[in-house]
């Protein structure tokens, strides 16, 4: 194996020599060449790198032949990815050789969204964008620009450019994803833990569809535990997902009532004295108030709210407490569902706390992290203006650096508290990621300037003025990333092949802009310098060389109980695990989770719910030919009962409408959803013609989702939309 690997310098020389050939050889051509077994082919090269198709960052061994990526294999050295590579990870090869991808910088030649582009040089693209950004800065101040991005190893450079430019308006993905769960666990434990599904014996999941929305190592650990009958899995979801199919018990809970289920479990566990008394006394605060509070939430009451029989709730609560500490109420990841999301996650956290699963094998474990170095760059002044989403006023507890997406859009559209006229976007597609697509398009069209950095023509890029093509992850080297967890690791993404088109890594795009914005001093470093500074302190000999060879450095043996000493101070106001949170009370929120019943859809209406497939995480993945072929078009899931009432059969064309908008989509009549809910897959009905497989195919959920958010975290509430369905 080792002899197949080369160091990066030699590798770059080899690939540079093969670069001309790369541009013309198609991938299939190369594969055929290989299959015929021509002995003259050079031996394949194996490069260790890290996947970018979703946030899991699995370790990959890329096999390169003649300068072309032949196959991506899982790298078993990563303790988090557990020697696997999912469908998305395998399909990343197609991302590189996708004829649809962005191949050179583009400047808009027609109206916004018309799809007329002029291919330009990098210089022209940088000059044009810098001129526009400077004009906006002069007219509206630096706060007149918005810098939005989603997580990625090179996101930091983009955020830093926005900050160095002087804008307070950096907005990141969490409020379209997991902000509420992060905030709720932080408010309780002072940190966001991981769940030890490998060793758990009892797992409850509220809508966390772990067998389709793959998270490492949780998905693999859960299937191992659950299918080897080590763990019992209780699953609540309005849909019969793969996770439901594998669960020991599935309850199609009434949407938005998960908190009632959890509070009733607490009622049983506290009322029957089944909690971990010693743990509660030593490590928590506010138990008496909790006990008093949950007395009202009886299983009989919860049955009426959730539709789950009271005897099942009692039984589950008892089993859960008996299995503790090897029992977890799993937090989930995309926790953007309902307006009460933060408080629902708080209730989960409290339930976990009282059974004493904290920092125990098979329970909830605070994340370990491998320490690494940092590149020290020149700091800039803090922005003078406040954030446009007025975070301090609207969401005092929300993560300052991430912003709140929907509030931000509302304020920008209203021009409050000041005008925002420039929008830079990195690696994100707000047109599909945010609910109410019409509002996002209005926001785009109201901008004086929109610049997008991406690898493919997203719907957002389609409405931009300048599009900067970023090299795909297999064509670039990224910063080292620390992956906190029960099995912590650091992963390194290194260049596998040279860029096959006229693209650049994000750092170089940022530097190109910085130079013209006279901000070069803040970005005066190379990727190698950055990475070497990070690698310096890693606990291994010759760390940079090690990472180049292995791509990952992981710790295989988890540690439990590090925080279980009576003098341990949790990062909360009281220094204890806060069952009752004074801080929440001071900020005007319920210090204990108070249940408020959800509204039900009116007759003839359905609640729209969202979810993922193992093949798709992000909206751009539907345009990958190796993933698209499994689900070429999305359709609207509808239970046979309402479908029969409306005379709808599978394949019928439907009009689905909400207050936000309406779409046309085919029906899929299925038993696998509650009669009062509908569901569609994300990432279809694209506006950009350069998403050729899904342009105008199916429908985009973003069109019909209405704007709603969780009041504490500002996290978008994606399950608060009621739709009308009509056969057309």
């Amino acid at each position, binding site marked *: 194996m080792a002899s197949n690997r080369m160091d990066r310098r030699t590798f770059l020389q080899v690939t540079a020599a093969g670069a001309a050939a790369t541009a013309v050889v198609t991938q299939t051509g190369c594969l055929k060449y290989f299959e015929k077994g021509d002995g003259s082919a050079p031996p394949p090269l194996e490069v260790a790198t890290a996947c970018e198709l979703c946030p899991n960052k699995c370790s990959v061994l890329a096999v390169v032949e003649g300068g072309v990526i*032949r196959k991506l294999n899982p790298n078993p050295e990563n303790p988090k990815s557990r020697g696997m590579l*999912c*469908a998305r990870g*395998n399909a990343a090869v197609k991302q590189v050789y996708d004829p649809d991808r962005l191949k050179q910088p583009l400047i808009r030649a027609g109206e916004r969204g018309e799809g007329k582009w002029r291919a330009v040089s990098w210089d022209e693209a940088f000059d044009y964008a810098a001129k526009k950004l400077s004009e906006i800065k002069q007219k509206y101040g630096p706060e007149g620009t918005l810098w939005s991005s989603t997580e990625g190893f090179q996101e930091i450079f983009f955020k830093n450019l926005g900050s160095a430019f002087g804008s307070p308006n950096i907005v990141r993905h969490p409020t379209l994803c997991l902000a509420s769960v992060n905030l709720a666990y932080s408010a309780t434990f002072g940190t966001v833990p991981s769940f030890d599904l490998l060793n758990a014996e009892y797992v409850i999941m509220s809508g966390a569809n772990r*067998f389709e929305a793959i998270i490492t190592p949780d998905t693999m650990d859960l299937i191992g535990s659950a299918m080897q009958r080590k763990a019992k899995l209780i699953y609540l979801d309005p849909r019969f997902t*793969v996770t439901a199919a594998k669960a020991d018990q599935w309850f199609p809970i009434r949407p938005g009532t998960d908190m009632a289920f959890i509070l009733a479990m607490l009622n049983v566990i506290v009322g029957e004295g089944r909690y971990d008394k010693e743990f509660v006394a030593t490590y928590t605060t506010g138990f008496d108030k909790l006990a008093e509070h949950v007395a009202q939430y009886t299983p009989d009451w919860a049955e009426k709210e959730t539709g789950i029989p009271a005897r099942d709730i009692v039984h589950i609560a008892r089993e859960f407490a008996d299995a503790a500490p090897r029992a977890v109420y799993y937090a989930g990841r995309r926790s953007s569902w309902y307006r009460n999301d933060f408080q629902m996650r708080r209730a989960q956290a409290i339930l976990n706390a009282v059974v004493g699963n904290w920092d125990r094998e098979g329970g909830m474990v605070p994340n370990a992290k491998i320490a690494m170095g940092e590149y020290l760059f020149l700091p800039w002044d803090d922005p003078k203006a406040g954030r446009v989403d007025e975070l301090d006023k609207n969401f005092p507890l929300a993560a300052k650096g991430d912003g709140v997406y929907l509030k931000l859009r509302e304020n920008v559209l209203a021009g409050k508290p000041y005008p925002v006229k420039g929008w830079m976007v990195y690696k994100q597609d707000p047109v599909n990621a945010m609910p109410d697509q019409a509002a996002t398009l209005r926001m785009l069209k109201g901008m004086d300037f929109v610049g997008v950095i991406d690898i493919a023509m997203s719907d957002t890029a389609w409405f931009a003025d300048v599009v900067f093509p970023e090299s795909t992850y297999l064509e670039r080297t990224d910063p080292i990333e620390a992956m906190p967890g029960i099995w912590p690791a650091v992963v390194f993404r290194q260049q596998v092949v040279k860029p096959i088109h006229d693209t650049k890594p994000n750092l170089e795009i940022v530097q190109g802009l910085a130079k013209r914005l006279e901000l070069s001093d803040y970005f005066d470093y190379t990727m190698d310098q950055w990475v070497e500074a990070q690698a310096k302190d890693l606990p291994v000999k010759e760390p940079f060389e090690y990472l180049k060879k292995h791509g990952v450095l992981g710790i295989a043996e988890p540690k439990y109980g590090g925080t279980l000493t009576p003098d341990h101070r949790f990062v909360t106001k009281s220094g204890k695990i806060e069952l009752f949170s004074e801080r929440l009370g001071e900020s005007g929120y319920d210090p204990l989770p108070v249940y408020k019943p959800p509204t039900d859809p009116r007759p003839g209406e359905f609640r729209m719910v969202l979810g993922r497939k193992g*093949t798709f995480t992000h909206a751009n993945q539907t345009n990958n030919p*190796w993933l698209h072929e499994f689900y070429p078009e999305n359709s609207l899931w509808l239970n*046979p009962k309402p479908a029969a009432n409306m005379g709808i059969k599978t394949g019928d064309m439907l009009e689905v409408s909400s207050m936000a908008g309406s779409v046309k989509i085919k029906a899929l009549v299925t038993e696998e959803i509650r009669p009062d809910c509908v569901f569609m897959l994300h990432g279809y009905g694209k506006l950009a013609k350069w998403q050729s497989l899904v342009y105008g195919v199916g429908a985009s959920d973003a069109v019909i989702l209405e704007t709603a958010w969780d009041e504490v975290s500002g996290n978008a509430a994606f399950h608060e939309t009621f739709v009308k369905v009509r056969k057309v």
Partner: protein
Amino acid sequence: MAEKTKKRYALVIDSRKCINCKACVVACKAENGVPVGKFRNWITEERRGTYPHLLATFDPEQCQHCQNPSCVRVCPTGASWQREDGIVLVKFDDCIGCRYCMIACPYNARYFREDEGVVDKCTFCVQRVDKGKIPACVETCPSKVRLFGDLDDPDGALAQMLMTRRYLTKKSETGNGPQLYYLL
């Protein structure tokens, strides 16, 4: 045993662990250059029941590398052939694209490659196996549904598994002797 080097490759499949994520299908596509729209392996879904009493099962399937492969028997040119280790292959240079083998295969495991005019199928990733690696579908699987190994090695993990677990084979009544063992 005199013939210690003799091997008989087979797969044991634990369908209960399959989450229908398609990783094996895409890995195969990448490893073997399978065109879009064609598949060497696939996952059969079975869904039953009425809301809320539902059941769904997923079965990964591919060529069974049978003991008595009917595809090999019907091939008029000898293009379909079987190695000593049981792997059934198609010699593209000898395949005339008559597709008799596709009709003869009880598992519908073969597909026609229009671009080459030949029939293609799962090879157990011979190019990997001959280098001591495991097939791409086996390696990439998140939940490790498949176990690849040598049936003739009594101490091997695969033979051990079959000794201690109950299993079934698909369409064994055809007499083909399929070599994919599905655990019960």
